[in-house]
């Protein structure tokens, strides 16, 4: 028996002498991935300029010095209608000498356009490398469009979207001193109705911004007690789906803390409601959740970000917006 015991001990000692025998961590290969085109294109019905990002993905362990190295500027980017006609051919952007603008049409809440605002695009980012100037607003409500990106190395990626109808909303009203917030300051409320078309699944994104007399303008940090609203990726936007009010008029009640109650100040509050495609909704929701999970960092379930690009990654989304000037509640 002693023989067995000592043989065993010698065996253990021999094993122990192996390199890294007691090491408890090791590098392992990452999950495999498919290289592909990454596209981001958002089209709003009143857009006259479209911007797109076309790049390629990298493995989860690859690191890059500059994300612009991933851009694929030699791609062909087209938007086709249902008949297969090219309605938009996008051009490579001169990334160093371009000023981007976003045109926003202001309505009176009854479908009439009362104003047009051209906002410069801040932080346009290093990832926008295609643009198209349109002769007129994109329009196309109810029509289906296909995005097609062709690249000599990465092949063809595509996605289809239907342009939603412009949302119908009632005249928004705001109350600049509806109550006191947790910090002892005023909070304001904003109220309006969304008239939801019946028999279809609709998704909305709501934002509001303030424009002061001195020209300062910023999005309002909206809050709500309404559990139907969900946060969206990015700042100041809330998302809503019509599961519980299909075909009905839905009253939106929002709160914000920004100071708008100075009688000396003639501020204007604009409400922007977008009908967004389901793909946009899912992308914005999951992107928001992924960012939140990233912030928490540990003991959190991973989030899969939605995408709709066939043979590629990213998002092609369509939205139709209505912007209305809110009136002060009497």
């Amino acid at each position, binding site marked *: 028996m002693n023989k067995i015991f000592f043989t065993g001990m010698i065996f253990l000692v021999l094993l122990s002498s192996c390199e890294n025998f007691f090491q408890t961590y090791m590098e392992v290969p990452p999950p495999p991935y498919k290289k592909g085109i990454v596209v981001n294109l958002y089209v709003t019905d009143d857009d006259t300029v479209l911007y797109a990002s076309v790049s390629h993905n990298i493995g989860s362990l690859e690191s890059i010095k500059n994300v612009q190295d991933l851009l694929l500027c030699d791609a062909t980017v087209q938007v086709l209608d249902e008949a297969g006609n090219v309605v938009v051919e996008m051009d490579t952007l001169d990334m160093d000498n371009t000023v981007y603008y976003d045109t926003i049409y202001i309505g009176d809440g009854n479908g009439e356009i009362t104003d047009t605002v051209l906002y410069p695009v801040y932080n346009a980012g290093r990832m926008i490398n295609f643009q198209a100037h349109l002769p007129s607003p994109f329009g196309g409500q109810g029509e289906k469009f296909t995005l097609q990106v062709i690249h000599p190395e990465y092949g063809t990626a595509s996605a289809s979207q239907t342009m939603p109808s412009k949302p119908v909303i009632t005249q928004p009203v705001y109350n600049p001193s509806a109550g006191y917030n947790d910090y002892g300051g005023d909070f304001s409320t904003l109220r309006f109705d969304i008239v939801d078309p019946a028999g279809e699944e609709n998704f909305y994104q709501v934002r509001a911004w303030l424009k002061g007399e001195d020209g300062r303008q910023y999005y309002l940090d909206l809050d709500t007690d309404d559990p139907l609203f969900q946060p969206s990726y990015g700042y100041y936007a809330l998302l809503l789906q019509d599961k519980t009010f299909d075909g009905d008029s839905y009253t939106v009640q929002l709160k914000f803390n920004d100071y708008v109650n100075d009688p000396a100040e003639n501020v204007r509050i604009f409400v922007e409601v977008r009908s967004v495609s389901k793909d946009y909704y899912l992308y914005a929701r999951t992107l928001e959740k992924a960012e939140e999970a990233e912030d928490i960092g540990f003991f959190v*379930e991973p989030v899969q970000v939605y995408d709709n690009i066939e043979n590629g990654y990213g998002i092609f989304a369509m939205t139709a917006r209505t912007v209305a000037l809110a009136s002060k509640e009497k």
Partner: protein
Amino acid sequence: MLLKKTALFVILSFIVLAGISQEKYTISGYISDKASGEKLIGANVYDQRSRSGAVSNVYGFYSLTLPAGEVDLVVSYVGYGRKTISFTLRKDTTLNVTLEQSLEIGAVTVTAEATRRIEHETQMSMTDIPVKQIQALPSLLGETDLLKTVQLLPGVQSGSEGQSGFYVRGGSPDQNLILLDGVPVYNVSHLFGFFSIFNTSAISDVKLIKGGFPARYGGRLSSVLDIRMKDGNLHEYHGDVSVGLISARATVEGPIVRDKTSFIVSGRRTYADFIARPFIRRGFKRDGEEGDAGYYFYDLNAKITHTFSQKDRLFLSVYNGDDRFHFKSHYQVEDYKEDMKNKLQWGNTIAAARWNHVWSGKLFSNTTFTYSKYRLGTDMAYKYSQVSQGDTTREDTRLDYTSGIDDLALNMDLDYIPDPAHYIRAGFKGIHHDFNPGVFHIGYLEGEEGMPVDTSLGQKRLAAWELALYAEDDWRITDNLKANIGLHFSTFLTGNKQYYSLQPRLSVRYLLPGDVALKASYATMRQYIQLLAFSSIGLPTDLWLPTTEKVKPQDSWQVAAGGAKTLGGIVEVSLEGYYKVMNNVISYKEGAGMMQFNDWQERVTQGRGWAYGMELFVNKKKGKWTGWVGYTLAWAWRQFDDLNFGKKFYYTYDRRHDISVVSVWEINDHIHLSGTWVYGTGKAYTLPNSVYYGFFPSGEPGGVAETEVNYYEQRNNYRMKPYHRLDLGIDFIRKRKHWTRTFSLGAYNVYSRKNPFYMNIENEYHYDMQTSTETMEKQLVQYSLFPIIPYFNLNFKF
């Protein structure tokens, strides 16, 4: 008239003859160990003349109704010498039988009929694990672990490296009903899951059921692990003391009133904190502080059994166990003072009062009143003060967190055995649950004047009632065909919502020529409480939560079919296939986690799970060499509307192949060798396949935000490396007249396999001195917990 009289005579004759031929009497009683008086569970009583038999229940009671006349009873139990008792049965008879442990297990041979064999039982998907075998197997740090032995059975998978949690046929750990003397245990692990709470010195019987659940069990979807504590020796005092690497344990048992009242007390405690304390204190001093820190766990089992008469027995049992971590430090320099205190504690308290009553030779009842509590508490306090130019600045912060579950239950079980063809069980159970889903209490004081904050955050306590009724019959339809037919009804009242469930159960066995049994079963189950657990590791902060109006109860159905045979009277072979569907299984939503304070119901989502597979089990239970080989081929899936975009995905513990080889070789009376080898397909894990960048319309009017997206092809898209491990142990036994000493040596993970425990993507930075540039490299790193871990254990039995 004559015709009428003749007819009456014939009818009466038939009745009398029938009465004579049906004149039957009942033999009943308890079967116990001769030396200790400990009742034997599952012992076989077999009449060789009528070829009828019975099996003792979990309290050692049996009942066998036979025709009047001569009987030749053979009473047998694995590891014990059989006893043959012959007498003339003329009336209902109480016969208590004692069996003696066999010194030469291998030498004992009994006829096939007289032994309780796998092919004779209607129940399928069930395994009895001898406690002796659990104690004989090598273990992590020498801590004999019941649950780690359960993990070695086919159809049962272990979780992460070293963890005690187990996964049965694609189910989650909270779907296992773990009963200690009939009382559900909620948290079964110590030291973050590395050791189970069950002290094998105090345990007499362990049974695992994975499917074909008899109607008497309910409340969980995937398995029942029925653990019975020893009653204590009725005749003489005995005990054992063990000292191992991390803990010591002691057990004492004996009669309080000889042959009437017995007790057993068993305790275990880790002592690393005692050993480490001087070093820790010295470490604090070196840093100019005063302080202390430590961790320990303990278990205490106690039981008193009293026999009032042949008909009445009373059991009082209690378990209490805790894990405790504490840390405190004090730092003072001139006018600056800082104090810190942390405490983390979790554990179970379980108590049961049980009354066995024999109403007649055919009717036995068990009434139990139980209490089960799981608690978790943390207490963190930080205090500092500084005096500067006469002004005192101070801060006093305290954070408490408590969560847990309290159960009070009453149940009654009736065993009615009208004849050898029927074994009828019926009963009810009522449980009052009181859930504390986690409450934070924060106290804060700052500044000289101080603005005190004293607030509680978290979830409201929830109460619920769970009631169940059941009836089942183990019915021998013919000599070859047996069935267990049952119905389990349960209801759950939570808030204003009440749920009901009727669960049919059926198990059938058909004995083919050559004693090959074909078995099939169907069982539906319902579960009203669930464990909200983070998917990758088991923590004491995992919460037991009830079904509510929003969170629906979990349901399952399972079919299983297979065959079983005992080869050569000593090797059990079974092959089973199963298909199980689970509805409303629970999972955290994407992006949700344990460190969030919103309503837990908003953090979870419910979906569907299903699992199927095949299990082969070859088990040698007798002889000098015992052990088993188990192989499982299995698939386990999940599908949730809110996860993986509604598409099905592999469950985290989907394991295609699972092999276990377990062996104990009693070379002679002085040396026993043991070994286990396990292999399992790697765990499914979620890791990003690739990364991509883009933009999103956001920010100020007209602004965009750059996005970085981790792309996951699907949930659980990555397979960790396969798990395999070899454990070896050797026991040196020295027997003396009054004591036995066992010195155990062994090693866990003998060839130091780096089994995956946790994966992480890490950034490694390289600095180039020549170019003064820094580059970053990402790595996927797999962490393992245990390389080879040797152990020793010294045990004295007296």
